[in-house]
């Protein structure tokens, strides 16, 4: 028994360490990228179209911009946007999910209909429409991504609260004379917290990928921004001329950071809610 326990503890520690390393990497990219924002815009025609070398590990583009600085700056922008939009989305999800569950049948019907509406339209299509209607650019992307990503988390929270309301221990607490606040904080919060935190972190990769895609399609951030979507769509014009490095490294970095966020989310989920792994 004691060896089992030690192993379990060790595994928790290993997972925590790996997740912390992933978070540190993403944080470093975010900070470095915002520091290098100007370096990413610097053009120098004496070094244009260089293949990856020691000085420019990701090569340079047709205007002589350092692709490494541009990639990191673009990712940093994506991550900051992703965190902002995921937080707004999660807040919307929390408020709507909660009000659907506690404010009676009419509110529940309205919120459920909105969830079905948002989830029924293809994500990227809705995102493009909202972003375009809000005038594209930074504002368009933030509003678009925030307004399209809350639905699944809201549904999760609604279901969880409904289930908790019907659970025997909540009904017993009511008979024991406990008030609504007591039940909300002592009984519901400990059950909702892990779901909410996991849902929030797992929103980041979605938000980042969708920001990059909508920008790639030309309905997102403006072309002068060093965004991953902009870098990738510009590189399309140069791929045919054999400049593979323009798309490969930024693309790999985007995929890597999305996977790291996903990994962190799953690890956090396993650490704070081990039982859910078996569901």
């Amino acid at each position: 028994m004691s060896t089992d326990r030690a192993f379990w503890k060790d595994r928790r520690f290993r997972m925590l360490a790996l997740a912390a390393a992933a978070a540190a990497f993403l944080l470093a990219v975010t900070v470095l990228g915002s520091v290098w924002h100007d370096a990413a815009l610097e053009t120098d025609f004496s070094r244009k179209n260089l293949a990856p070398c020691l000085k420019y590990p990701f090569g340079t583009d047709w205007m002589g911009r350092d692709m490494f600085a541009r990639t990191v700056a673009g990712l940093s922008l994506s991550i900051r946007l992703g965190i902002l939009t995921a937080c707004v989305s999660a807040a919307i999800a929390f408020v709507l999910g909660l009000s659907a569950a506690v404010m009676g049948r009419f509110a529940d019907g309205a919120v459920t209909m909105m969830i079905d509406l948002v989830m029924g339209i293809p994500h990227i299509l809705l995102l493009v429409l909202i972003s375009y209607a809000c005038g594209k650019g930074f504002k368009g992307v933030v509003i678009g991504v925030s307004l399209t990503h809350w639905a699944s988390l809201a549904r999760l929270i609604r279901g969880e609260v409904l289930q908790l309301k019907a659970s025997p221990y909540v009904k017993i607490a009511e008979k024991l004379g406990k008030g609504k606040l007591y039940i909300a904080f002592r009984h519901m919060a400990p059950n909702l917290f892990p779901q909410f935190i996991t849902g929030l972190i797992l929103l980041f990769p979605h938000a980042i990928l969708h920001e990059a895609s909508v920008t790639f399609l030309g309905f997102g951030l403006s072309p002068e921004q060093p965004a991953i979507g902009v870098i990738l769509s510009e590189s399309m014009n140069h791929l045919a001329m054999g400049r593979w490095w323009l798309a490969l490294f930024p693309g790999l970095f985007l995929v890597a950071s999305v996977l790291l966020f996903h990994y962190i989310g799953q690890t956090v989920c396993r650490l704070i809610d081990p039982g859910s792994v078996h569901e």
Partner: protein
Amino acid sequence: MKLEAKNVSFRYTEGGRLVLDHVDFTVEEGERVGVTAPSGFGKTTLLKILAGYEKPLEGEALLDGRPVSEYRGYCPVQMIGQHPELSVNPRRKLKTVLDEGDWSGDFGERQRIESGLGILDEWKERYPVEVSGGELQRFCIARALGTRTKILLADEITTMLDLVTQGQIWGFLLGETMRRGLGLVVVSHSRELLEKVCHRIVEVDRKQEKNDG
């Protein structure tokens, strides 16, 4: 206090089978009543209605002349169920189960009940999955025995336990109800248990059988 079900009927789904069909039942403080019937005859449903968890379709469940489900704050009628693992929050330590009981700051009373039920201090720091079903049920019983409880409804509360533990728990419950003059309703399949514990035994017969055909 007097708890009574008057002409109570109940069904779970609209148009479904009548689980209870015009049932009458009375229990008073200081009285111990056994309820027995085969499975599916609505014993648990009757207790849920008496405890105010469900509202009867027809008839009334009255506590001193007032519908039980209308009592706000601490309800003098408390029910202990047959699934302790569903009756406690899986994410909270067991000491919080005891904290929910009604002790009015009377720590001695709480401690007397805890030791009477054989609750060990080391269990209190554990989560519900970390103790056995029998250990968990003791917490649920202690929680229901708060000072303002007048009538206790016990729904197959020891079915999952071994005979020694059953004996221990019923020994304590019997002493406790006599000492405080509590009313007690015991639902069980075991005639021997009911004959030992109760003043009188009620058989729920299936009048509603006629309606099924």
